[in-house]
């Protein structure tokens, strides 16, 4: 019975998404928009969590995968001239999202291959570079609208799509982590040399993590493009990647629930600070530094310790 529990949860959450869809019209547009953004950020953060949290490969290029997905799906639905609400729009949107995921995961593969040789800071800066290269290439492709952006995307994303995909993603992640692959990821993260010594194909696991993470980042990009209906390359700069990384780190690397909560909180926080708009990014940055300084353990659940602010660190002796 126990092994069916995740499947039951998946079914239940999909039904719940469907029910909430009925009430969708009663939610004020502003809150609705924030809720959908939360959903998209949860997908982005959870997929990055596979790469950063479970496989331990520090990636700063998630916005690049997102951009690849956003543009792919936008091109597909625009070329098919889908009108929102028609019966054909659902399979077409699903098809475009899957294509978005596949193209993004191809980019993931491209980024994953250099990651075999690099680690830590170097990998971070390389993935950042890849993300920027994807952005610059889009900026120079005229059929994608270049720097002017891509307009006239049908508004196909809604609550059901976003949260339905979250349910599937969380289901997949949960099962992945509890499979031999998941154990392989953790082994690679904790000690690469020991992992390869016991016969784990480190290369394979790293690439799989990148491909899987990028796939869902691409889908998130597709959902985003079909929600805001206008995309341009500057929306996918590396600040976007930083935001996603911050969500994962604050939630706790490798903590599924923690990342979901922190993605929600960090999406709401800038909105809540909107009344003091000019200070909000400063406060956000300051909070980030303070959280880092106070955190005791490496993962969420690690205790916060106020004393750390004035305690001397052991390395100083």
């Amino acid at each position: 019975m126990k092994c069916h529990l995740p499947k039951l949860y998946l079914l239940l959450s999909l039904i719940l998404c469907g029910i909430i869809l009925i009430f969708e019209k009663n939610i004020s547009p502003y809150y609705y928009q924030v809720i959908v953004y939360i959903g998209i950020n949860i997908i982005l953060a959870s997929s990055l969590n596979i790469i950063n949290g479970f496989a331990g490969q520090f990636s700063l290029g998630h916005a690049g995968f997102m951009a690849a997905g956003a543009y792919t799906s936008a091109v597909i639905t625009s070329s098919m001239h889908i009108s929102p609400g028609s019966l054909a729009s659902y399979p077409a949107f699903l098809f475009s999202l899957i294509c978005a995921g596949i193209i993004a995961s191809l980019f993931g593969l491209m980024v994953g291959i250099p990651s075999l040789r690099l680690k830590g800071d170097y990998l971070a800066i390389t993935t950042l570079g890849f993300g920027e290269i994807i952005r610059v290439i889009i900026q120079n492709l005229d059929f994608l609208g270049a720097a002017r952006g891509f307009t006239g995307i049908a508004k196909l994303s809604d609550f059901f799509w976003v949260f339905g995909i979250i349910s599937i993603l969380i289901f997949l992640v949960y099962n992945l982590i509890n499979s031999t692959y998941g154990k392989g990821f953790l082994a690679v993260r904790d000690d690469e040399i020991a992992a390869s010594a016991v016969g784990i194909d480190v290369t394979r696991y790293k690439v799989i993590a990148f491909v899987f993470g990028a796939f869902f980042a691409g889908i998130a990009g597709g959902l985003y493009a079909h929600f805001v209906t206008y995309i341009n390359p500057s929306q996918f700069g590396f600040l976007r990647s930083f935001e996603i990384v911050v969500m994962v780190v604050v939630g706790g690397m490798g903590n599924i629930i923690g990342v979901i909560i922190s993605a929600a909180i960090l999406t709401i926080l800038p909105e809540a600070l909107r009344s003091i708009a000019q200070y909000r990014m400063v406060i956000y940055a300051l909070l980030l530094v303070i959280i880092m300084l106070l955190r005791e353990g490496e993962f969420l659940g690690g205790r916060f310790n106020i004393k750390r602010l004035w305690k001397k660190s052991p390395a100083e002796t």
Partner: protein
Amino acid sequence: MNQLLQQIINGISLGSIYALIALGYTMIYGILRFINFAHGDVFMIGAFVGFYSAPHISKLVGGSIIFSGILVMLLAMLICSLLGVTIEKFAYKPLRSRPKLTVLITAIGVSLFLEYGGQLIFGPDPKLFPTIVPSMAVVDTQNLVIGSNSIVAIVTAAILMLILRFIVFNTKMGAAMRAVSYNHQAAALMGININSIISFTFVLGSSLAAAAAILYSSVYPSINPLMGIFPGLKAFIAAVLGGIGNIYGAALGGLIIGLTETFVTGYLSPTYRDAISFGILILILLFKPSGIMGKFEAEKV
């Protein structure tokens, strides 16, 4: 031919500015083994110190534009080195024994704080940097114009790099720095005060960034609070290209990146300017991760 010469001069002046910033990255990496993401923003603060102080200083000093230019640069170097040391004391020092990732994210946080704090205090719109280097054409033929600011940038950068070389290789403080970069513990056992060496490194790195900022703003006089991001990233790439932790490597890498960038802008398309540096970075990391002059460090179990 003249156009080629023009590109080379522009490339060297941009490259020597990148080299100055790259030296800061490489020294801090050499000693603390982490990328100081906030370095580019220290560079930005340097430009703004110049922007606000230049009118006052030139009024105070009077006619001599060279003397006031030197004063502006020294002031920017002083303020930025204070800023660098403060960042190190408050943000990086408490995290010295923690995982690399924590320090990296803290550095990103500090960088965002400086950028958005800068937007709050200085305003987000671009500002025109005052002329502190007398601007005139040293050489002006049909299609070759060499401005005095390019020459000043190249010469000043060269002088600063020679001073740095002297400090690192010919003084006691420099010897201590090199010792700390080999091994913290062993250096501490030899009676070297690690904390003061780290602070000194931040002073050197940040003041070079400030000098680079003044030179950069004299050549490209539009400054804004986000101006530090790309020069910062490119200087980092230069440091990696030359072999991170190696001072000559940083200078060489800076020149290579500066030249490539000007050639891409001049002969291909300016829009690919930012992508080409990242392309170089990925190629160098794939084929020679230790950089041109870096040493290969074997991984220990």
